C-alpha cells in the first residue's frame, strides 16, 4: 500500500466514488484504526459523515431503569485515576469529554460546540495548536456553569505527577490556555497530526474545578468528589459501592434535548462473564452486559430464547504469538533473553516463517472463537489490489516441512528435528485461560507433524501479566521461545501501539523489563520509519508508514498475528445502544433508549 494509492483512494472518497465507510473499513483492514482513517479524511478537507440520528426518544426520562452488568465492577469513579476500562466506564456515566469517537471513527462533539478542523480554523499551524469551542449553557450536576476554566484545571490537575493520574501521558506534553469562557487552545510542543487526544474519549473527561480545585496534587486522594462524582453527563450520581454497584438518576438539566431516555441507571459488578451473559440473554434480568468472554456456542444457545442478543463491535485488539529471537535459556551479559544473544533456531527467519505456517488460524476461528474472533482480518478482508504480496497467511504443514528441511533441520529417530546436536524443542507459554489452552493445542498438533516438539506452558494470569520484576514467568520477561496473548489497542492512534517494535523499547534488565518491545525485535530500518512517522505531518504519508511498519514485523515473523478480537457485549433485544469499537461502551450513553414493545 503506497502513499499514492492512499491519495487516490482519498480522492475517490472526495468525488463520492468510494463511500466513506468503505474507505474506513479498508484502512482498518490494513491495520490502521478507524479514527486514524477518519482524521486523514478530515485533513484532506472531507467533511465528517453526519452520524445517523438513531435516537428516537421524545422526552427526557420516563424510560424506566437501565440495568447493566459488569463482571468487573468499577472500583473508583475518578476518570483520571482509572485502573482499567471498567473504571472509565463508571466515570463516563457522570463525566463527559469534549468529543468521542463513533464506530466509524468520526469525532462526535459532546461538550464541544463543534469539532475543530483546519477548515473552521480549529486546527492551526498544522496541528500544533487546536482551538476547541465549548458548548454554552452546560451546567455541572450541582448547577455551576461549565466553562473553559474547568478544562484548563483538568489539564493542570492531571499533568501534576503528585496527583498520580493514569492519564498523565496525554496531558504532560501539552499546554492548555483559556481564550475566553468558552474557548480553549491546546498547544503541542511540535505539530501533531493526530491531535485528538487531550479532552477526547476515555482519557478526555473534564472534571469540575470548583470541586477538585482544593485537592490538586498530593491531596488528590482526599477529594470527596472522588466518591461522589459531579459531572455534566446524562445521569446524576446517586450511590456507589466500590466493586459492587454504581447508581445514577436522570439529569433533568442535561445539555442535549430529550435525553437521556432512562430514569435511572445501574452498573452492577461482580460474578463472571457466563452468568452475566445468562442474566441478559437468557433471563432478561439485566439489559446490558459488558465483555462477554464466553464461547460463541454458549452465547448462541442463550440467544435462542430471544430475550437478548450479542453485539459484536470490531475493535483493535489482537491475539498474537511473539517469536523470541533472543536466547531465553542462557545468560548473556548477566541476563536471559539478552538482545545480544541469538536464539538457536528462531534467529533464522526461515524457521520463524515455518512456525507461522504451522498456525492454523482458520481452525482457531471456526472452532474456538466463532463470531467473536476473526483470523487476522488484517490481510484477509481487503480488496485484492491492496493485499501486499508478502503479507498473506496460510496454514501449510508441507511447506513448513520443506522450509525446515532447507534450513538444515533434519528429522531424528524420534521424529523431532535437530541441527548441530540441538533438538527442535520449544516452550510455548501463555496465560491460563480455556480459550488460550485450546489455541496452544491447535498449534502443538501442527508443529508435531512438522517435527517440532512444543512444550505448552500456561501461567496464572495474575502472574503472567504482572510487572513483578522478581518473577521469571511474566510476559514482559518472555523467558520462553514463543508466547501468546492479546494486546489491546485502546488508543485510536497507532503511534504508541507500534512502539512495541522499537529497539529503544526493548524489554530488558536495564529497564526492569518495563520496555514495551516484548519480543525484542531489533530492526534499524523499522526504527527509522517509526521516528519519521512520529514527526510526519501529512496524515496520509504517516498512515502509509504505519502500514509499512506493520508489514515489516509480520513479514519478518517477529510476531504471528492470529485472531482479531472484536468486543462482545450483550444487550436486551429492545435496548438500542450506540456502541463504538474506538471508545468506551458508554461513550454515547445519552443516545441509548428502549424500543417500546410492539402493539
Amino acid at each position, binding site marked *: 500500500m503506497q502513499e499514492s494509492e492512499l491519495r487516490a483512494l482519498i480522492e475517490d472518497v472526495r468525488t463520492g466514488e468510494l463511500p466513506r465507510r468503505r474507505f474506513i473499513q479498508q484502512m482498518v483492514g490494513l491495520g490502521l484504526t478507524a479514527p486514524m482513517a477518519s482524521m486523514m479524511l478530515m485533513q484532506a478537507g472531507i467533511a465528517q459523515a453526519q452520524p445517523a440520528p438513531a435516537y428516537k426518544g421524545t422526552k427526557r426520562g420516563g424510560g424506566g431503569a437501565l440495568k447493566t452488568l459488569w463482571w468487573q465492577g468499577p472500583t473508583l469513579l475518578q476518570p483520571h485515576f482509572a485502573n482499567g476500562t471498567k473504571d472509565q466506564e463508571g466515570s463516563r456515566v457522570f463525566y463527559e469529554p469534549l468529543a468521542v469517537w463513533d464506530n466509524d471513527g468520526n469525532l462526535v462533539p459532546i461538550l464541544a460546540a463543534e469539532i475543530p478542523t483546519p477548515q473552521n480554523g480549529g486546527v492551526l499551524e498544522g496541528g500544533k495548536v487546536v482551538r476547541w469551542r465549548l458548548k454554552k449553557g452546560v451546567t455541572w450536576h450541582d448547577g455551576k456553569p461549565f466553562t473553559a476554566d474547568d478544562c484548563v484545571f483538568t489539564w493542570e490537575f492531571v499533568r501534576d505527577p503528585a496527583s498520580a493520574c493514569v492519564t498523565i501521558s496525554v496531558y504532560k506534553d501539552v499546554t492548555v490556555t483559556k481564550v475566553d469562557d468558552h474557548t480553549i487552545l491546546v498547544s503541542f510542543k511540535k505539530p501533531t497530526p493526530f491531535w485528538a487526544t487531550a479532552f477526547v474519549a476515555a482519557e478526555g473527561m473534564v472534571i469540575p474545578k470548583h470541586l477538585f480545585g482544593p485537592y490538586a496534587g498530593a491531596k488528590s486522594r482526599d477529594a470527596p468528589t472522588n466518591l461522589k462524582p459531579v459531572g455534566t453527563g446524562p445521569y446524576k450520581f446517586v450511590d456507589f*459501592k*466500590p466493586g459492587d*454497584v454504581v447508581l445514577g438518576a436522570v439529569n433533568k438539566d442535561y445539555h442535549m434535548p430529550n435525553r437521556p431516555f432512562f430514569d435511572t441507571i445501574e452498573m452492577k*459488578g461482580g*460474578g463472571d462473564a457466563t452468568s452475566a451473559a445468562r442474566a441478559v440473554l437468557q433471563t432478561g434480568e439485566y439489559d446490558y452486559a459488558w465483555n462477554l468472554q464466553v464461547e460463541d456456542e454458549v452465547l448462541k444457545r442463550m440467544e435462542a430464547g430471544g430475550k437478548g442478543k450479542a453485539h459484536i463491535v470490531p475493535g483493535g485488539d489482537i491475539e498474537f504469538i511473539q517469536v523470541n529471537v533472543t536466547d531465553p535459556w542462557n545468560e548473556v551479559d548477566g541476563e536471559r533473553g539478552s538482545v545480544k544473544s541469538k536464539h538457536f533456531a528462531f534467529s533464522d527467519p526461515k524457521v520463524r516463517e515455518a512456525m507461522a505456517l504451522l498456525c492454523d488460524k482458520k481452525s482457531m476461528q471456526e472452532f474456538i472463537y466463532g463470531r467473536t474472533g476473526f483470523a487476522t482480518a488484517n490481510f484477509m478482508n481487503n480488496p485484492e489490489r491492496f493485499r501486499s504480496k508478502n503479507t498473506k497467511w496460510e496454514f501449510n504443514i508441507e511447506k513448513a516441512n520443506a522450509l525446515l528441511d532447507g534450513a538444515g533441520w533434519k528429522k531424528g529417530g524420534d521424529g523431532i528435528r535437530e541441527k548441530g546436536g540441538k533438538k527442535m524443542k520449544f516452550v510455548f507459554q501463555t496465560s491460563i485461560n480455556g480459550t488460550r489452552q485450546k489455541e496452544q493445542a491447535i498449534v502443538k498438533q501442527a508443529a508435531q507433524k512438522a517435527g517440532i516438539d512444543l512444550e505448552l506452558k500456561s501461567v496464572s494470569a495474575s502472574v503472567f501479566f504482572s*510487572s513483578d520484576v522478581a518473577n521469571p514467568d511474566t510476559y514482559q520477561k518472555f523467558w520462553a521461545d514463543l508466547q501468546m496473548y492479546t*494486546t489491546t489497542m485502546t488508543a485510536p492512534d497507532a503511534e504508541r501501539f507500534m512502539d512495541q517494535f522499537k529497539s529503544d523499547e526493548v524489554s530488558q534488565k536495564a529497564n526492569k523489563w*518495563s520496555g514495551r518491545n516484548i519480543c525484542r525485535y531489533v530492526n534499524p530500518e523499522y526504527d527509522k520509519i517509526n521516528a519519521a512517522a512520529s514527526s510526519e505531518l501529512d496524515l496520509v504519508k504517516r498512515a502509509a508508514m504505519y502500514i509499512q511498519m506493520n508489514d515489516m514485523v509480520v513479514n519478518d515473523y517477529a510476531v504471528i498475528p492470529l485472531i482479531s478480537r472484536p468486543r462482545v457485549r450483550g444487550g436486551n433485544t429492545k435496548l438500542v445502544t450506540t456502541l463504538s469499537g474506538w471508545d468506551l461502551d458508554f461513550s454515547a450513553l445519552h443516545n441509548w433508549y428502549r424500543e417500546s414493545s410492539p402493539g
Partner: protein
Amino acid sequence: MGRYLLRRLLIALPSLLGISVVLFTVLALAPGDPFSEMALNSNVPPEVQANLRRQFGLDDPIWQRYFRWLVAMLQGQWGFSFISRVDVDKLILGRLPVTLAVIGASQVLALMIALPVGIYSAARPYSWFDRIASTLAFVGFSLPTFFTGLLLILLFSIKLDWLPFVFRADISGSGWDWWWQHIKQSIMPVLVLGLFQGASWTRYVRSAMLDVIRLDYVTTARSKGLREYAVIMKHVVRNALIPVVTLVALTMPQVFGGAIVTEQIFRVPGIGSLLIDAILRNDTPVIMAVTFVLSCLVILFNLIADLLYGWLDPRISYR
C-alpha cells in the same frame, strides 16, 4: 475469672502480632502487583505505573512497609485500597450489613434445621426418619456450594423464572415491596449456605445427643416416670448442647468473613467478594485488613466459646 480474662487477652496480643507478620510477609512475597491491569493498556506508559508504585510505597523493603502498616493500624488507620483509593474501613463497613444479613440468616436457617432434625434423629436412632435425615445430611455436606448454587439458579431462575440470581444491595422502594424484593433475592444464597452448614451441624447435634442419651442419669430420669418429651428436652438436650454451642460460637467469625464462593455466584456484595476481588487485584491493604479482622474475630470468639463453656458447665473452672 477476671484474671483469667486478662491473661487470655495478654496471650492474644503476641499471637495477633505473629499473625500480622505472617500475613504481611506472605502477601509481600506473593507474585503480582495491583497495577497489572495498566500494564496491558498501551495508553498508560510504564512510568505512570512506576510512579504509582513509588507513591504507594510498594518499592520499599518489606520490613519498612510492615512497620508503617503496624504503626498506622495501632493508630486506627487501616490504610487505603490501592485500587479504589478509598479507605479500607469504609470499604469493609459498606459490605458489612449485607454480609451480616445474608450469612446471619443462613446460620439461623442452619440452626433451625440442625437442632430439631438432630435431636429427633438421636431420640430415635436408626429409625426411618434418622436414616433419611442422615442420608440427606451426607448429601448436603458433600455437595459443594458452587454446585448447589448453580443447580438452584438453573431451576428457580432459568427454568421457573421465579427468583432473580443477581443480588442487588441497593434496591429502591420502601415498605413491603422493599422487604419482599430483598427476601426474594436472598432465598437462594441463604438456602445454599444454610443447607450446607445445617447438614454438617445436624450430624454434630445427633452425635452429641447420642453421647448423652445413653448416660445413667437419663435412664434414671426415665425410670422416675418422666414423660419422654421432658427427658429429652430438659435433661438430654441441655447437656448435649454444650459442645454444640462451642461449635456455633467458633463459626461466628465466618458470619463476618462472608462466603467467597456463594457470594461470587449470586453477586452478593459481601466481605467475601471484597476479599476475593482484593486478592485477584493484589490490593494488599484490603486483603491485610480483612484477613486481620478475621483473625482477631477468631481469637475473640475462641475466648467467648471458652467462657460460655465454663458458664454452661460448672465443672470447668478458670485458672
